[in-house]
């Protein structure tokens, strides 16, 4: 019993640390967002919703939010589409190479985003292989670059979240015994119905979680948007950064970041709620026990 209590104490401590590290700075932002901005980082002393009203009534900000959400969602989906088959392949790879591939994956997920983005901008630039190929097949009619647009930013986001997603989903697929696949196949399932009736339902919770993690990362992504978007792709984090650096307007920047956090939380809760109400999956089957 005493051990149990000590354990609870440790948990409470961890919770307290999280609150201090995460919630408190957010509260600071929240507070700041309700004051009027005077120049040079100074704030008025009247509480008001003025900053929120400014943002929410301005088509420019709305467009920025919509762009950020759509871009993040698409990039997360694309990343899932790439990560799941890769994770599946890795999880079923019965070879000593596997360990090295995992190490490679781990290492690559620690590579600085700046370095990754640099590599991508060389790959997508007008001198890179893709643009060269397109120039070649269009007989020089097309001679642009694939950089500096929403597509490039999306590719950057996908690239950044991919190693993490693969590792998450690798764990998910590993929990599905190979014998379930054998059973499905021997009982007559096609590859497609193996995927649809067995693999996807059994990985659904993991896929949703991984997708949300990627989405949340994308919503806050700054470096890819700046470097690959080349000033052409204004997302919420980019606009926040400009508000702070160019205009030294902390209250509006705070309001933007509060709205961004709110959007992320709402979208996560929505998806989780949808998942609860959804069809019975493995999770539900297990929970019933």
């Amino acid at each position, binding site marked *: 019993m005493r051990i149990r209590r000590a354990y609870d104490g440790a948990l409470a401590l961890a919770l307290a640390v999280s609150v201090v590290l995460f919630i408190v700075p957010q509260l600071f932002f929240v507070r700041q967002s309700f004051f009027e901005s005077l120049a040079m980082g100074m704030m008025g002393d009247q509480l008001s919703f003025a900053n929120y009203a400014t943002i929410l009534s301005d088509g420019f900000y709305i467009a920025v939010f919509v762009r950020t959400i759509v871009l993040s969602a698409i990039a997360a989906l694309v990343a899932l589409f790439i990560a799941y088959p890769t994770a599946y392949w890795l999880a079923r790879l019965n070879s000593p190479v596997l360990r090295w591939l995992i190490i490679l994956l781990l290492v690559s997920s620690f590579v600085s985003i700046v370095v990754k983005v640099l590599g991508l901008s060389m790959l997508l630039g007008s001198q890179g292989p893709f643009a060269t190929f397109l120039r070649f097949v269009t007989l020089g009619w097309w001679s642009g670059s694939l*950089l500096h647009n929403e597509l490039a930013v999306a590719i950057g986001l996908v690239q950044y979240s991919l190693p993490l997603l693969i590792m998450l989903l690798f764990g998910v697929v590993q929990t599905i015994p190979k014998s379930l696949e054998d059973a499905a196949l021997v009982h007559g399932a096609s590859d497609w119905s193996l995927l649809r009736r067995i693999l996807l339902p059994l990985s659904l919770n993991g896929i949703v979680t991984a997708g949300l993690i990627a989405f949340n990362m994308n919503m806050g992504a700054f470096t890819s948007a700046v470097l690959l978007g080349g*000033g052409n792709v204004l997302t919420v984090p980019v606009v926040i950064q400009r508000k702070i*650096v160019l205009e030294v307007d902390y209250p509006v920047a705070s309001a933007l970041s509060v709205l961004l956090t709110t959007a992320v939380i709402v979208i996560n809760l929505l998806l989780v709620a949808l998942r609860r109400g959804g069809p019975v999956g493995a999770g539900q089957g297990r929970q019933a026990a």
Partner: protein
Amino acid sequence: MSNTSRRTFLSGVAGLSIAGLLPGSTGAWAQGNLGAIKVATWGGSWRDSLDKQVGEPIRKAGGTVEYVVDTPQGNLAKLVAARGRSAPFDTMESGLELVQLMAADRFIQDLDYEKLPNAKLLPDFARAKNYVMTLGSMDGIVYNHEKFKEAGLDAPKTYSDLAHPKLQGKVAFPDVNHTQHWNAVAGLAYEAGASEADLTKAIPLINKIKPAYFFSSSTDIATKMSSGEIWAAPWHAGFVIRLRRSNVPLSISYPQFGTKRGSLWPVLHHVVRGTENEALAHRFLDTYLEPQVQLSHAKATGVLPVNRSAIQELGKDPETNGVLLLSDAELDNLFVIDFSKVNLAQWRSAWDRDIVRG
């Protein structure tokens, strides 16, 4: 307060221990410990040259110089963020778009010209109450003359020339947080028949150019110019000189601003209010203004010194030939933006909303 004093104290200790370790470095100690400063400046080759020309002599004299690298706006944001606490750096390079902001808010202190003997060698306009103009970049259209020749294009004469169909996807434009932004949009405003008093007139022309992207860092555009990804961009002559050294075939052309031709973007230097080492800050600045240092730094980075004798010396450098406008007549005819006329908030809003992107 206590932060800075601790930092000074610690670097003093570090200096001591290093002095004890390295043979022959006792000389520095003998010349006295000047303490430490931090200088806020741009990064890349600019910082490297600055450190070599100004940082090095300060170190030799027994001081310590560190750098905080960012755009002037970025550094100003750091200053604002540190309001009420000790300043994050002691001196700072900036541009015209920031002086009013900073002076009004008293982030910078008045200069003590007694401690800046080299400033006496400068023309009057270079000495202001709270800044001294150290150098200036010569802004114009930097372009890859080989690519232009291959495409059968003439050298661009105006900023609007960048809208040529053959340049689609090959032109980059300095973003609003980049130093070279202002002369470029001012130039376009003049080409649209307006002036810096109404920069929004430049917007349709920028949309017509439809730049491939908007650069925020010179390192970035330098890479893309070198690779041939980008053929032309409003930028400054310094990079023509620097990139020619690695055989990138770049030239610069200077469009008209009404009757003026070519544009200067002055580099300003401030001493930050609340510095704990005012003496070393001034000493750094004064070293910066030494004619020989001016010349070497200007040569290395391809900018214009403010010291006239340095300018004359620079004219003898073959690297500047045909790149910088150095005759007295040309210098007198350079456009310098009058920032008091610029409506900054209006322009930033227009830039975010009215530029066609993607």
